[in-house]
């Protein structure tokens, strides 16, 4: 087993031992989304119209929840320094952390998304596209989030800072994620939006580990 896979497996094992944490993210996702009908009223057409947007926005917020812990535990007990000294490049470490974050946060959200869509009375024709768009967009959220978490490591108000740094960078994912679902619901081709989501994923796949590793090196100096 390569060092990369070992690192991902370790993070997954740690997450599984604290199963409540992963469950909390999905719970937050569903709970926040359940607040909107209470706030804007239960009218089915309105909710169906708003469903893609609300699901994406709450997903964006739910991803933020677990970001602060992403490097903090390893930073505090010193294992991050050992990881930095290990032969595995620090960029790969960031990528492994982001992958583990996506598997424990992004993937459950992708699974919970269609459930919320049903609660919101969204047309079933949009469901496959919802899953596809979230599956393609949420890895970018984890990658950008990993960068934000690395940058704020050791900051005084890290938990408050991360949303301020990460949310503006997530805006393109939100726009194209919602647009893909809206296009599928309107009977248009969602292809351009999905291509953009894919392009955003590829760009973050390259830049986020580089920038995240640069940020981690400063934190460990």
């Amino acid at each position: 087993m390569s060092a990369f896979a070992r690192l991902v497996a370790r993070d997954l094992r740690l997450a599984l031992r604290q199963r409540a944490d992963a469950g909390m993210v999905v719970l937050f996702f569903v709970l926040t989304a359940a607040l909107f009908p209470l706030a804007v009223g239960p009218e089915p057409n309105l909710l169906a119209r708003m469903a893609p947007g609300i699901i994406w926005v709450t997903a964006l917020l739910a991803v933020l929840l677990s970001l602060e812990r992403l490097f903090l535990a390893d930073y505090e007990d010193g294992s991050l320094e050992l990881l930095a000294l290990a032969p595995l490049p620090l960029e790969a470490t960031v990528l492994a952390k982001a992958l583990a974050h996506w598997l424990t946060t992004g993937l459950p959200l992708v699974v919970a998304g269609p459930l919320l869509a049903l609660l919101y009375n969204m047309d079933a024709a949009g469901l496959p596209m919802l899953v596809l768009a979230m599956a393609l967009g949420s890895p970018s959220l984890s990658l950008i989030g990993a960068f934000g978490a690395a940058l704020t490591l050791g900051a005084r108000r890290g938990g408050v800072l991360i949303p301020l740094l990460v949310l503006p960078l997530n805006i393109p994912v939100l726009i194209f994620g919602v647009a893909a679902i809206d296009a599928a619901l309107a009977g248009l081709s969602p292809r351009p939006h999905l291509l953009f989501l894919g392009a955003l994923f590829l760009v973050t796949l390259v830049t986020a580990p580089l920038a995240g590793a640069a940020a981690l090196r400063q934190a460990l100096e």
Partner: protein
Amino acid sequence: MHRFANPGRFLRLANALLPWCAGLAAVSIALGLYLALFVAPPDYQQGESVRIMYVHVPAAWMALFIYTAIAAASAVALIWRHPLADLVAKASSPVGASFTFLALVTGSLWGKPMWGTWWVWDARLTSMLVLFFLYLGHMAIMNAFEDPARGFRAAAVLALIGFVNVPIIHFSVEWWSTLHQPSSVLRLGGPAIHASMLWPLLVMMLGFKLYYVSLLLVRVKAELLAARLRARAYAVLDAS
């Protein structure tokens, strides 16, 4: 470039430049305002309210210009560890955020008589708002660490990532607004702008640029002097 890494040399240069920059900034802003408020003709559609443009457009240009300057300073700071580049980035971001805020507020004041509303989710307004948040993030992370050097470097990485993202965000917002909004918004610059309006605009822009340079010199000077004071205080503590 490393000639000016010496704080003493930079301070001498800044002291020599500052009166000229500040004086020229005052003269060109005064001249620009006179041209904009009294000389330039009112717009045939928008009437007198078009005069907001002479503050709004240069402020919006400055918002983008200063973010570019911060990204350039951050790159210099990360690559060459130039000590002044960090200070330039730190001194620039509140100025840039203020210009962005000014552009947003004047845009809103302009929007009320023109579009009948304080705010529309138009592509330009929205991406300006996002730029404002990027500035705030930069300022927040700069001051978030006990060790100022750590804040400098984290802010530099963020500024570079933000700089890569500004066009991406801008184009995605543009795409989004064409999807959601029919072209109901009155846009500037459809027909080529007439010289009588262009000149006040250019003079104002020059004034804003010089104003930024003057503020930058003052703020970097203040940072350098503060560092000197700190060093002196430590020296006194060590001696006692």
